């Protein structure tokens, strides 16, 4: 069945089932001890869970059935990244998906099965959604640099991307060195230095794969803020100060409402963006709108969530801070709000 063009009700039912099935791996109300245990470690993720994720067929989600995928659309993909976001899973689901999308029919079976984690290395600037250039190739070996590869210590291989081609390299290949830095959420990010690394050349990347990653990240940010807000609402209803739940104070009520409005706006924009993506439109403008709104809203909502928790919110032991810190990491990924606003503006110029 062609899911993307299925009728509304059928597809909604499929989406509900998909989200329901996600709860086993990425529960919205799961406790966060496991997440905490993996923080600031290497490789920083749970290969067991990674196998589960692949066993559920999530990795080949968007690949055509002919290429071993499930042939699902952006709506299904985004629904899953929303759950992964809300569960604060450290596994680089969107990155692995991006690598698969970029490889398309060239994607190796071990990647789809979860046995081989391939992460894409496409960026050489602190911000943007533009594939970097400057990879030199000679006699099947490549040299150059790629920055900000999330969770690189866990990779079995990297997909090095430039505007003209992709290359698959082994993570242990000679000539490859990694400079790894911790990120505020307890994960890490790496710079890849490539000095004559043996590489399999694949075809040129389809830039739409990056649009999908940006939308998927926007959805993850939505999941983050939804859960952070739910936790905060709960706190407002139970924390007592001056003899009443603090949720009775009008100033705090109104701030909670403004958070809910941000969440509602993000949800609405994302919905429209996903629809446009699945309809096959040029959706760069609306993708920019969705990613910009999601990034700003997630920062606002998680910041406010911490603030509404009072002093306890500023401790590492309070879970609410985990959401702020994950939002800090995902907000700039695949283009910050500022980048996307600028892109929206330049794509709009000259339009009626």
């Amino acid at each position, binding site marked *: 069945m062609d899911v993307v063009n299925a009728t509304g009700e059928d597809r909604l039912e499929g989406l509900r089932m998909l989200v329901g099935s996600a709860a086993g791996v990425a529960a919205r109300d799961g406790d966060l001890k496991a997440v905490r245990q993996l923080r600031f470690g290497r490789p920083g993720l749970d290969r067991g869970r990674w196998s589960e994720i692949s066993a559920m067929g999530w990795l080949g989600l968007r690949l055509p059935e002919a290429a071993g995928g499930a042939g699902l659309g952006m709506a299904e993909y985004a629904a899953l990244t929303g759950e992964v976001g809300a569960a604060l899973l450290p596994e680089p689901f969107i990155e692995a998906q991006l690598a698969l999308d970029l490889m398309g029919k060239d994607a190796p079976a071990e990647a789809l099965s979860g046995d081989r984690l391939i992460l894409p290395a496409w960026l050489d600037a602190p911000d943007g959604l533009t594939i970097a250039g400057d990879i030199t190739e000679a006699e099947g070996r490549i040299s150059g640099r790629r920055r900000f590869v999330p969770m690189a210590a866990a990779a079995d291989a990297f997909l090095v991307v430039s505007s003209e081609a992709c290359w698959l390299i082994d993570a242990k290949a000679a000539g490859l060195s990694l400079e790894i830095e911790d990120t505020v959420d307890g994960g890490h990010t790496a710079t890849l230095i490539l000095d004559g690394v043996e590489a399999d050349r694949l075809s040129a990347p389809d830039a739409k794969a990056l649009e999908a990653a940006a939308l998927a990240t926007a959805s993850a940010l939505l999941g983050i803020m939804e859960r952070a807000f739910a936790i905060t*609402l709960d706190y*407002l*209803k139970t924390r007592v100060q001056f003899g*009443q739940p603090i*949720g*009775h104070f*009008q100033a705090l*009520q*109104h701030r*909670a*409402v*403004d958070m*809910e*409005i941000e969440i*509602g*706006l993000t*949800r*609405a*924009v994302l*919905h*429209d963006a996903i629809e446009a993506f699945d309809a096959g439109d040029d959706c760069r403008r609306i993708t920019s*709108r969705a990613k*910009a*709104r999601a990034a700003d809203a997630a920062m606002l909502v998680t910041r406010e969530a911490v603030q509404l928790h009072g002093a306890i919110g500023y401790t590492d032991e309070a879970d609410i801070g985990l959401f702020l810190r994950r939002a800090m990491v995902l907000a700039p990924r695949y283009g910050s709000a500022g980048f996307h*606003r600028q892109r*929206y*503006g330049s794509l*709009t110029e000259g339009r009626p």
Partner: protein
Amino acid sequence: MTATASLTAPQPHADLNLLSDTDFRAAVRGWIATNYPQDLRSPPKRLHAAEAMPWYKILSQQGWLAPGWPREYGGMGLTPSKLLILIEEMERYGCARLPDTGVTMVGPLLIAHGTDAQRAYHLPKILSGEVIWCQGYSEPNAGSDLAALRTSAVREGDQWVINGQKVWTTLGMDAQWIFVLARTNPQAAKQKGISFFLVPMDTPGVTVRSIINIDLHDEFAEVFFDDVRIPADAIVGAVNEGWTIAKNLLGFERLFLGSPKQSEGALDHLERLCDHLGKRGDYASLLNGLRMELEDHKSFYTTFADKVRRGDTLGPDVSMLKINQSALYQKIADRIMDVAGELGTLAGQVPDAPTLYPGSVFLQARPTSIYGGSSEIQRNIVARQVLGLGR
């Protein structure tokens, strides 16, 4: 020959639900372009009844005046989905708002709660434009706290005697009839003991005084009731049940309080102002950011409009739409003043650019966070009814 032109023009009183949404939109768009009075396009201020009457009559003759009423009562009987298309197309073309209290409030009220006699008497007069209605909700000491109203109606024989004062009656100077919420049981709790009455404005004891608003327009009126006697059958629904009726009066119309139309108009104004000043480039980033916010608001609006299209009831969460619309509209209007410099000080239009009136746009944006429930009240509603943060 385009697809639009190939459609026959819609016949008066035809059942347009038979068209597809696409054909309906095309038909409506074409008809408006042909029939709308050009001198009334995008008026800078709300039109008085006399000014709007040409358009009222055109719609009336076409049978399009009451798109939401059932066809049996002379309406178009449109599905919610088609109704939204009609409204969108009218907003898009810049059609002026009519004195529409009769159509949007009194008609639905009588259809749902009126007697056959009330319907037979009033509905045709609304449809023809013979009677313009206004509403008597707010009072000087019952602003946001509507249920605190004090206007009283006392039964004497076969009459009701009304005393009190209403305020913020939109276009009250233009109306022939008013509907009035009045307290019929002073002992009952606040929201109980209120009834709903229909009153001719020429009844002895009714006095109207216009209120000039901050943009110096006489959009509102005060209406005073001094021993106003009306017959027993001037009540709508049961005695003491007026509050329930009044509360449900605004159904999906609450959607329109959050319509992006005002923000869209204001942003368009800001863009034209920047062009006029030769500063479009300087303000590119500001304009782009506001455009994105507006587009996001439209997505938000669509979420609620889709509910209406599906025939679902709007919940209290629609208040969020209005909060966001008010905030965005006022933000754009504020930026208009930032950009306008001395042009923003002018009471009227910019002399060499008469489609620009930045100061007026700014002032008109002020009440949006008050009418239909202030943004504070709306936030209280969302906090309590949506988020469960009530006391």
